[in-house]
């Protein structure tokens, strides 16, 4: 896995109907490195992340994740965590139980994995017994990030993880992402916040610089 870049995108073309969104986009995320794509709304950041996650088929171009095709296989999803799509929470399961479920599905012991510490770190300790639909949008975002960072993975694909977080929350999440990259994980994210991206230990790049032509 380490012989290959975490993500390698070459000549990616994606359009919605007659409107091109991504034109000749190329990008490399080295294994153990982080890249943050910035740019205004509608420029195709989320579309790029969806394609890299294997959730959307490009019209043209190649995408390799750790040297293989992104796909729907369980092996892929054991290595990759993405927050590109919002989850539908399990009914009748609390926030803490969701975190425990994900840990146990990956063979982790919830206590050793640090479920309670993670909830505390993300400011959710007081909401551990709430069902996620009762949480505010910011709290739900923090829960998703907490679970994403709790379970083992090799690549995080995050779409605007700073959204709906307050200033301290942003600083905390940026620190955790920097630790993740320092620990050998790879990170590809889209953001509107350059300072957050830099604090996450990611190399900041613009959509324009990745694209062969302006859509």
């Amino acid at each position, binding site marked *: 896995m380490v012989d290959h870049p975490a993500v390698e995108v070459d000549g990616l073309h994606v359009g919605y109907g007659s409107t091109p969104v991504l034109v000749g986009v190329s990008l490399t995320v080295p294994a153990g490195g982080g890249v943050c794509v910035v740019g205004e709304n509608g420029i195709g950041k989320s579309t790029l992340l969806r394609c890299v996650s294997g959730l959307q088929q490009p019209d043209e171009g190649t995408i390799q994740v750790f040297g293989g095709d992104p796909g*729907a296989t*369980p092996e892929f999803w054991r290595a990759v965590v993405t927050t590109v799509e919002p*989850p539908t929470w*399990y*009914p009748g399961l609390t926030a803490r139980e969701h975190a*425990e479920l*994900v840990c146990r599905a990956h063979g982790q012991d*919830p206590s050793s994995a640090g479920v309670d510490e993670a909830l505390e770190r993300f400011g959710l300790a007081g909401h551990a017994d*709430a069902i996620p639909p009762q949480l505010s949008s910011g709290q739900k975002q923090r829960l998703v990030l907490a679970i994403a960072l709790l379970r083992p993975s090799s690549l995080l694909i995050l779409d605007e993880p700073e959204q709906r977080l307050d200033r301290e929350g942003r600083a905390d999440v940026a620190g955790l992402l920097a630790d993740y990259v320092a620990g050998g994980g790879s990170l590809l994210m889209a953001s509107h916040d350059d300072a957050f991206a830099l604090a996450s230990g990611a190399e900041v790049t613009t959509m324009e610089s990745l694209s062969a032509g302006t859509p």
Partner: protein
Amino acid sequence: MTVVPLSPVRRWISRTQSSHRERGATLNSLYIGALTIAIIGGMLHRQVAAIFWPSAPDASALTAGSLVAVCYGLLYLALRRFGPLALSRAAASWLLTAPVSRRRLLLPSLRLTGIAAALLGGLAALAIAGHAAPRSEAGDEVALLVTGGALVGLVLLLVATAAQAGGRWGDALDRLAGLVFAAGLAGLVTAATLDRPAVITQWPPISALLPVVGAVALVVIVALALVIRGLAATPSDRVLDASRTAGTLFDTAFGMEPSFLTDMIERRFWARRRLRSTPLFPRLPVLVAQDLLLTLRRRTRLLWLLLTAALPVLLGGAPGWVLGAAVLAGCLIAGLTASGNVKTDAGNPVLLRLLGLSSRQAVLQRLWVPGVLAGLWAAIALTTLDLLGDLAAGPWWALGLTLGPVGAAAAVHRARVGFVRNELLPLDTPMGTLSTGPLVNAVMGPDMLLLGIPAWIAIGSGELTPTLLLLQAIIGVGGARIYLSGTTGDDRTELSN
């Protein structure tokens, strides 16, 4: 605060809406509605007559009393579940927040639900009298009983309306109505087991009926006045909730998509619960532990499920194939009580991707709890039938347990169906155009009950041979196994069929 008169606002809305409709569209809709009722009535008039007024009374006094509890308990619970007072989505958005009289805003809803409650109450009284009362010239008594039934329907509506605006006593009353309904079901089952139940031999005299009906009418008048006076105090959140329910019901009917309604009921149930995080049973596979935890958190539903295991007794006198089909359908319902998580994963696989499990691992684990519930339900139902002598002696409990995999496969298949596909080609039939999407959707799940054919044959004939028992065990487990390997894979996470 200045209160804006509501009538001119409503007239303006009605006029503006009419101007966007085609000329005569409303009359056309009324004509089609009336014609549909006339055609269906013409086709089914014999069945309707059998439901409301069979040629000879066929119910005992206990059955009649139990039916009263079932019908009126259910009517009250339905009124509470749907409001009873609701507004359209548009009115809830624009008029509930406008400075108009809340009482005048809600009065049309009260009028409409009043008509419906009286109609249903009257029809229930007619049907119960039709099944239990002796056949003699008793026109006045029938009219009084039907009027009394309609008035009871109105009383229930008024109590439900007060509960909608009131405090926690409404919840206590709901539980009481649930108990009345459950007692009614228990009464029906008991009546079906009696050899010589007492029957009603004569109509109650007019002299006794008239004061009772008069008293109920008086209660309705007083309660109506009190409810109308307190209508303005109905909290906005309750009206909004009821309006969302009405809107979802409309969506369900219009889109022929029952999941809209079931999802809403599920969301509301959990939103009201106060939960405490508990460790997921560490010795069990993770998704089995999750399903088990969710099932144990809905103990009331489990109790209802246990109660329904006695309901096949009501079909003890029906043809054997009907009884067999009812037991198989019960297995599906039992399995469905624990298949909510499959539905979540099939609708949106985001969490399944986060769990990193293959669709085969996920479905295999998700089959366990529905299977145990379906097997136990069938075992209890068949043992009850056996003990009451509706089936020849035999190890029926074992046959019930072999139906576990059948119920599990059917319930999980049903939960994986997803939305109704309305884009499927409609069928032209002599009765008109038939939409195939809802039909295909409706049979997915029940179709897996075909795996229970050996049990169906055994229940239908009333005899259980060791060969049929073994055959059912093999077909049930083998069929569920083939379903698992045929519809899932180790190389994908998505659960959709």
